């Protein structure tokens, strides 16, 4: 039987845990199956640049599930120098990535 995924808008299960300006660390965990957190960001610390709001969880949508509970998606800003062992560009260079809340933890 075809399990149809749903694309209706979702309400957040809970309020957003982080707000703009918060320092966050990307979880350094391996994962099986589909996930949208790139390897090179795992374990890295950045700052929340924007709160995009709740979206269905792609890790569940990948298995034809409704993708609930919805996860809050954030735009997180990293310093390029923090990401690469030997970064030769200017210290002001940054990288922004969209990361789901369940991949983020508070950082000092």
């Amino acid at each position, binding site marked *: *039987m*075809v*399990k*149809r*995924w*749903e*694309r209706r808008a979702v309400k957040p299960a809970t309020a957003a845990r982080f707000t703009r300006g918060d320092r966050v660390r990307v979880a350094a*965990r*391996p*994962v*099986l*199956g*589909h996930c949208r957190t*790139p*390897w*090179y960001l795992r374990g890295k610390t950045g700052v929340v640049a924007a709160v995009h709001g709740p979206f269905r969880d*792609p*890790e569940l*949508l*990948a*298995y*034809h599930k409704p993708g609930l509970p919805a996860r809050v998606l954030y735009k997180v800003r990293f310093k390029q120098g923090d*990401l*690469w062992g030997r970064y030769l560009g200017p210290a002001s260079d940054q990288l922004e990535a969209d990361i789901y809340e369940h991949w983020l933890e508070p950082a000092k």
Partner: protein
Amino acid sequence: MSEPERKNTPRKGAGGRAVHDIGGLTFGPIDRSEHDLALWEKRTDAMLILLRDNKRSILSVDAHRRVIESYGEQEYDRIAYYEKWIRAIRNLLVEQQVLTRDEIEARVAEVRAKHEKTGRKAPKERVPW
């Protein structure tokens, strides 16, 4: 499109790094040349759009990505962009019980025979499930 020269950087032993997740690894320069899409590539694109629209919702882009990301490293590096797409569509149609493997194999054999009859080249390669 000329295939970019990819120096195969092993992703093995990286403790859970998936085959597609290559950001930051060394693969040499990126081939930025554009090319016209072949008819089958356009059809593949169209099929994906139709299968994930509101009427059908047979697959999501995340399910499609999941299948593509599950190819082994050698296969992932070897096969072209839309080839990854059409293989994943095929497997998801079976996973979602829209078609059976037998139905797809039978149809492929039919098309292959038709091409052989008309002298059109048909690749001999059998695409693994």
